[in-house]
């Protein structure tokens, strides 16, 4: 029993990382109607920016985290303004840009990988953060890096919830997610709000990258695996649903951890997809599939 609980705790903390990435993907999907395939690279760039701030500027971990989140968010805004939004100029806005937007996302993913390769090279880089002694939970010694993941992820999720539920900015974001024309007619600056939504989505991805850095190495190709698992998480939870992204992320994390613990660690990456297939067979809309978008 103790072993089971240990696996669940580790699974939940890794699941938080998937949940953050999935949350960004779902947020962007509900706000801009695009499935952002370059989101794994945003996560990777976020981790590299964090590493630079931590190593080169010797910032402490918390300022590193906050600054990396902010910078990557702004980079996201820039990418959206310079590239994705051009595709919407042909008319119809984000809602009908569809296939072109998906291709653009794949293209952006390749571009960002190669930019990162040119700057940082292909070698995995360590992100050594002196977190101190592991925490003892029963007979499990949970490394502090996992505790940080849980604390920071929960704080970000609560923060997002409060912004969406309690502020005019959040109200405007939800309005834009539901219907851009009606949001416009209510006086919301829709183009600005689209930037805000995309930026927040990217910031969440960057947070995940900076959080996972100290556990895994930081490397150019780190985004692909996480993107696929975050997609699995988003679909399991109900694509476009924010609580669904969190629930899906945690489920994928726990399922993966249990599979690795009881069956075999070699097939670690398979378990997420087994879960995905099962959920799609039983409830294709996902666990928390909703009609109303950006339900927080």
């Amino acid at each position, binding site marked *: 029993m103790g072993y089971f609980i240990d696996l669940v705790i580790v699974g939940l903390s890794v699941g938080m990382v998937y949940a953050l990435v999935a949350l960004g993907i779902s947020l962007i999907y509900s706000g801009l109607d695009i499935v952002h395939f370059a989101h794994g690279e945003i996560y990777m760039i976020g981790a590299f920016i964090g590493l630079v701030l931590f190593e080169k500027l010797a910032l402490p971990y918390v300022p590193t985290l906050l600054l990396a989140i902010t910078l990557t968010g702004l980079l996201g805004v820039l990418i959206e303004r310079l590239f994705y939004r051009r595709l919407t100029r042909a008319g119809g806005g984000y809602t009908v840009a569809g296939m072109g937007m998906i291709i653009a996302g794949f293209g952006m993913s390749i571009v960002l990988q190669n930019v990162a390769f040119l700057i940082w090279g292909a070698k995995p880089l360590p992100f050594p953060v002196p977190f101190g002694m592991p925490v003892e939970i029963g007979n499990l010694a949970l490394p502090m890096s996992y505790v940080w993941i849980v604390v920071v992820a929960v704080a970000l999720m609560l923060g997002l919830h409060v912004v969406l539920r309690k502020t*005019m900015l959040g*109200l405007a974001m939800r309005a834009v997610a539901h219907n851009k024309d009606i*949001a*416009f007619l*209510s*006086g*919301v600056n829709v183009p600005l709000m689209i930037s805000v939504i995309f930026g927040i989505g990217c910031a969440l991805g960057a947070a995940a990258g900076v959080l996972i850095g100290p556990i895994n190495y930081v490397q150019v190709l780190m985004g692909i695996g996480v993107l696929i698992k975050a997609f699995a998480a988003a679909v399991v939870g109900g694509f476009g649903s924010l609580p669904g992204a969190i629930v899906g992320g945690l489920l994928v994390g726990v399922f993966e951890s249990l599979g690795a613990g009881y069956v075999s660690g070699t097939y670690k990456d398979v378990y997420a997809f087994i879960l995905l297939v099962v959920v799609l067979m039983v409830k294709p809309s996902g666990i928390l599939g909703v009609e109303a978008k950006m339900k927080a």
Partner: protein
Amino acid sequence: MLEIRDLVAGYGTVQILNGASLKVDRGRIVALLGGNGTGKSTLLKAVSGLIRPWSGSITFDGARIDGLRPDRIVRLGLVQVTQGKEAFPAMTVEENLKLGAYVVRDRAAMARNLEQVYSYFPVLKEKRNQLSGTLSGGQLQMVCIGRGLMSNPKMIMLDEPSAALAPQVVLDIFRTIHRITRDGMTVLMIEQNVRMALLLADYGYVIKDGVIHIEGPAEKLIHDDNVRLSYLGGTVANREAQL
């Protein structure tokens, strides 16, 4: 207050409005009547900024507004009230209303506007914490009118406020619109329900094939056979056939 001159607009390459002109004076209720596909909604979208006019001019309160972004036009005090079905279903009644006050940054002013809206529609105050997805059609229309009033506009444009509502509910809503106008609002109303609209309005325009076909004071239009004919989308030929 609002003057539209020779407005031409459409979607893609399809021209819908072929040079429509109309005028709304301050403090008046003006009805724009016409059947489906005559250009009513296109005109509304061009004025509120959702589509860009191809040519012609739109002047509001002395300033050109054609080509401005919708949120800028809202800031200038011209608000399009959407149809009831366009309330945000996953938001509570009060959230829907507050969204309408997005351009109002002053909390006290927002609270004042909210009380004002609740005084027009007391039922919304009772249901303020309910999701608007649970409301009736009439209440949804009230939410949308209320949302339009929340930014304290100088003029509102109503998009078929009677659509899909029972006659008694329409009457209630029209009474409230009348009350809102008495409090100083200017109204442009798009309607298919010609009789009801002309009972409420001071002046009416009938649009057909993207141009203004007939216009006049409401009490004159209501007795005009051509108005009913245009509204039904009939032609002179089939009118003669009927005779």
